[in-house]
């Protein structure tokens, strides 16, 4: 459930986000990853490392992340790992595109078809333009890892 503040903006720090920030999922280094990348957001100083294990069928068998950052980047990366685990690479690309549109306010979860599930909680972040890069950082790192780009920046 989205809650609105005095101005009618969707509250940024909803309980789900705070909870993922407190206890991030898959928050560890993965041994022998098939794919790896580092993401950096110079505005925040957020720094994320993502590790993936992709099997012969092009399925994301395992995914994890490490790093330091604001609550938005940490929660977003955490929720991303749970969303991507077990997905095929084409599915992951589709989710990346949908999430990208979501945080920019181009995809409205209650209007447009999507497969984002609980990631829809980030739908209000377009109202906080300086924070969009925080939410998308982990995703850009994953895309970089899959494209074999070792370092990505949201700057």
């Amino acid at each position, binding site marked *: 459930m989205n809650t609105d503040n005095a*101005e009618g903006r969707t509250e940024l*720090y909803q309980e789900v986000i*705070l909870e993922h920030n407190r206890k991030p999922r898959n928050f560890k280094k993965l041994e022998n990853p098939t794919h790896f990348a580092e993401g950096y957001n110079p*505005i*925040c*100083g*957020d720094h994320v490392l993502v590790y993936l294990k992709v099997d012969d069928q092009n399925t994301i068998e395992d995914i994890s992340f490490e790093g330091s*950052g*604001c609550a938005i980047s940490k929660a977003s990366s955490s929720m991303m790992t749970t969303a991507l685990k077990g997905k095929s690479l084409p599915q992951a690309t589709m989710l990346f595109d949908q999430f990208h549109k979501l945080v920019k306010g181009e995809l409205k979860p209650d209007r447009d078809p999507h497969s984002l599930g609980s990631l829809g909680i980030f739908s209000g972040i377009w109202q906080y333009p300086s924070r969009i890069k925080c939410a998308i950082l982990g995703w850009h790192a994953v895309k970089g890892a899959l494209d074999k780009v070792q370092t990505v920046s949201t700057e």
Partner: protein
Amino acid sequence: MRATAALSLPVTEIRKDFPNLQAEIRGKPLAYLDNAATTFKPTSVLAAMDDYYQKTCSNVHRGVHFLTEEATAQFEASREKVKNFLNARAPEEIIFTRGATDSINTVVQSYGRKFLKPGDEIIISHMEHHSNIVPWQMLCEEKGCVLRVIPINDQGEILYEEFEKLLNPKTRFVSVVYVSNSLGTINPVKRIIEAAHRLKASVLIDAAQAVNHLKVDVQELDCDFLVFSGHKLYGPTGIGVLYGKRELLENMPPAQGGGDMISAVTFEKTTYNALPYKFEAGTPPIAQVIGLGAAVDYVQGIGLERIAEYEKELLDYGTKALSAISDLRMIGTASDKAAILSFVLPHVHAHDVGTLVDEEGIAIRTGHHCTMPLMQRFGVPATCRASLAFYNTPQELDRLVVAIGKAKEVFS
């Protein structure tokens, strides 16, 4: 100082001069605590610029008609005001640039490229803004010079003895910040200048965060160059100042070529104009120069001694109030400080604090403040920074403390 005590400046009256301060943000009165990023502009500055555009608009130093002479007179009057403001010897020592960054780059491109040689050493400090690091690195790469860095202690103070150890006959240039934008530290620049001059090294002082907080006198400091930006001195953006000693500027080549900076041009040979025009190629930002003159008038109307005194009261009040928040760690606790309060909370990232206090109508800066090496020194990715001006009040600092408390609750 108590929030209810009498203030040493008539702040209520002063605040009326700044239209921005009347704003409401997110339904709450704005508390603008981001003055190190840019300051608000008093109506006199806006009126001076408006007057130029509406009444005297024309180009300067060109032609003989009435308006160009009037605009030129106002333009050069601003230069005279800045000269007096810094206590320079002559208006020719005041060069208008786009800002402090542009001023530093002008010195690097002109003085640095002409006079510095492979193996020459350039000293900066660990608390420099990127604008006083990167241009020197670029020069070192081009010319084979060596960059040396003065270390700092945990309070954010320059280790002066370490600076003296860095000095050697190869030291040709020292470029240091007067007041740190991230920490508020006021550096002992006079001692640094004296020590550098003993080795005949030139010294540039980055005074971008100093001219608005304390009286700066270039003759007393005896610096060779000093730079600042208009927009951090209650003036417009897009205008900065490069002060340089005349004998140095005379021997330096222009950093840019174009109109206004020449006295004669043929296809075979160009003769450069005299100071300060040699360094002011092209049509200058005329309205901004006039606006800067008005800003200098405004600041001097209050008086920098009074500003410094009031801001010290605010700084002490804010330091005490913020330090009382459990877990809060102040970054930058130098004994000699300007009114800048940098801090971190152990469990809340600076950017989250910034967004949450913004919900209360409070503007602070969060991030690395263009001083990434300094953040690494303190082991933090970013800090929250409340930077104060003479129009801020203890009540605004009280609101900041309450808002930080709320942010902590969200993350508890």
